[in-house]
């Protein structure tokens, strides 16, 4: 059990390629932190530096009050679950889980006790004699987790552990990982490219892009208050719609889209958006805030007509794709509303949930 702190950490490869460009992150004891971002954003490199599998070019990593830059992986008291599980194929499940303890010269009874305990917790007691080859994907995943748990380390590291599972199993294992963390509340750093995984698992999500941290925050905070255009677009599925716009004032502050459509900015936001009058901006609005129109609209809702391009019924909702000003836009409507390609659909846009992004800085204002 320990804090992990990452201070001004840089990872540079030969040829001056910087995979991680000086990041800072404080992870408190028992916390479940998820690093999320597109591939090549530096999240895995960061995790591997915490593990000691990659050398740290500059900066410091602390685990539990010690700088571990120069400590080899085995002395960092961490455990890691890999994307492809990395189970030793020639060892039984028991031996896989016991390997780390055996190398650390734990007494036999202690090893057995710990493995049994972990196996019971992960519901793999009946698999202990099997070889990894004879296991299903989900079972291998559990063994990999068991191997981490028995060591009772200061920190758990997960490197995209669910990517090799099929969609259904992934959802199931996601729940199990969360349950495991509730049972064994060890500090956890979890890397994934899947923002839903990040949102569902994390106490705090760290969004990374191009080797820098874009934003750190609780899942809801990231969703509702993204700090940058990247976070706004990355978190949430289907992704937030971005429409080029300008802030204008014709007797009330409004956003004006490229085709001249004007939509009033809610009173509560006038002060915030006032200074950006006349600048090139982007209007960000999530699909669920672009819906079919109702008889009586809430205050702050604006109506916009959009031509339907493609309709995707999902069951509990229907996704409709439009082209507005040549930009692809997605709206989420009630499945009972019937519409088809080529029709004009009036959309109710909830401006209370709008985001305004300054193009020059890509920051949400």
């Amino acid at each position, binding site marked *: 059990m320990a804090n992990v702190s990452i201070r001004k950490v840089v990872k540079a490869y*030969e040829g001056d390629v910087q995979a991680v460009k000086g990041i800072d992150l404080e992870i408190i004891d028992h916390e479940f932190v998820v690093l999320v971002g597109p591939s090549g954003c530096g999240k895995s490199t960061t995790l591997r530096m915490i593990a000691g599998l990659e*050398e740290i070019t500059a*900066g410091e990593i602390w685990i539990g009050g010690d700088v571990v830059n*120069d400590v080899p992986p085995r002395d960092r008291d961490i455990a890691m679950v890999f994307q492809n599980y990395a189970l030793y194929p020639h060892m039984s499940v028991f031996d896989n889980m016991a390997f780390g303890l055996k190398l650390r010269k734990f007494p036999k009874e202690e090893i057995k006790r710990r493995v049994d305990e972990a196996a019971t917790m992960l519901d793999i007691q009946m698999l202990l004699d099997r070889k990894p080859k004879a296991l299903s994907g989900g079972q291998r995943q559990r063994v990999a987790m068991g191997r981490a748990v028995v060591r009772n380390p200061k920190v758990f590291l997960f490197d995209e552990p669910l990517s090799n599972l099929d969609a259904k199993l992934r959802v199931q294992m996601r729940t199990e990982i969360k349950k495991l963390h509730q049972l064994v509340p060890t500090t956890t750093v979890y890397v994934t490219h899947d923002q839903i995984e990040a949102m569902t698992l994390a106490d705090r999500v760290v969004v990374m892009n191009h080797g820098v941290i874009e934003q750190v925050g609780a899942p809801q905070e990231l969703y509702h208050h993204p700090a940058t255009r990247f976070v706004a677009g990355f978190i949430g599925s289907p992704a937030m719609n971005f429409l080029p716009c300008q802030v204008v004032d014709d007797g009330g502050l409004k956003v004006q889209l490229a085709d001249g459509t004007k939509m009033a900015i809610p009173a509560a936001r006038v002060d915030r958006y006032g200074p950006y009058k006349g600048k090139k901006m982007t209007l960000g609005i999530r699909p669920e805030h672009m819906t079919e129109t109702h008889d009586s609209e809430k205050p702050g809702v604006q109506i916009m007509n959009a031509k339907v391009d493609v309709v995707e019924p999902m069951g509990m909702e229907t996704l409709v794709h439009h082209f507005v000003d040549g930009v692809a836009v997605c709206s989420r409507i009630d499945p009972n509303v019937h519409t088809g390609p080529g029709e004009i659909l009036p959309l109710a846009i909830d401006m209370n949930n709008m985001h305004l992004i300054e193009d020059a800085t890509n920051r949400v204002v």
Partner: protein
Amino acid sequence: MADGSTMVVGAPAATSPGPRQAGSMKQLARRRSLAALALCSPLILLIVCLKIYPTFYAVFLSMLDRKMNNFVGFDNFAFMISRPSFQLVIFQSVLFAVTAVILKAFLGFVLAHLMHNIRGRNERVWRGLLLVPWVIPLSLSTLTWWWLFDPSYSAFNWTLNMLGFEDIAFLGTVWNARLSVIAVNVWFGAPFFMIMYLAALKSVPEQLYEAASIDGATAVQRLFFITIPMMRNIILITVLYSLIVTFADFDIVRILTNGGPQDGTHLFATYAFVVGIQSGNIPRGATVSLFMFPILAALAFFVLRDVMKRNKEMA
């Protein structure tokens, strides 16, 4: 191989190099690099002392006179190449290697296809039976062939007589002996081609054939437009490798004909043995062997290029 070096990062600490940058992780990396070199040292020692050094030493030897006292430059090479008996060796070596390899490759290709046709059905047994020639030490099976070819006891000739044909002097005339030597080499080497080609055949995805069938390709078209292009690299590498080995072959000729009749079947290796070891003319023997070098080097270059290309394609 390549990925091993990525862990050993040599990049200097670019930004804010704290005091611990030269810490023990880096030292560890350097130590590991040293350990890696140490683990390879027996291999390096072996290659340097018993491969590279002898190669240069062979060049040196080939430039000495018979008593190994005087340096004679390229005289030995000039002398050898002017001798008709050595010209015959060059001719026979090339004839032997090229003919034998073409036949082995063809036979191997046919056998691989036959094996592929019966896939799954006792494949292991059939493959095992076909591999027997390749498993028996070559010198011992060649001895058996010699016994089969024996002028007065030949079991082949007995069979020919039974069928109403004349005796054949398998090792008695130059051309007969050359063909016999080639036959034994083909017998020994074809199984190797078979397993290489069979493995290549199996790696061609079945969907390609199904797609081609739907596109209307006949069996012959499938062979020429799918099988052969997909196997191209393996066919090439195997042929080049086999050319090297066959070209430098020693056992068959040494046992079957010992170069005869009339020195008509000598290869570089057997001739070098007679000249260098049996007659004790070390410089001349080294010279004979070295004549192989440019040809082998050229072949090796092509093998290496193809293997590298293939590795890159797979990566």
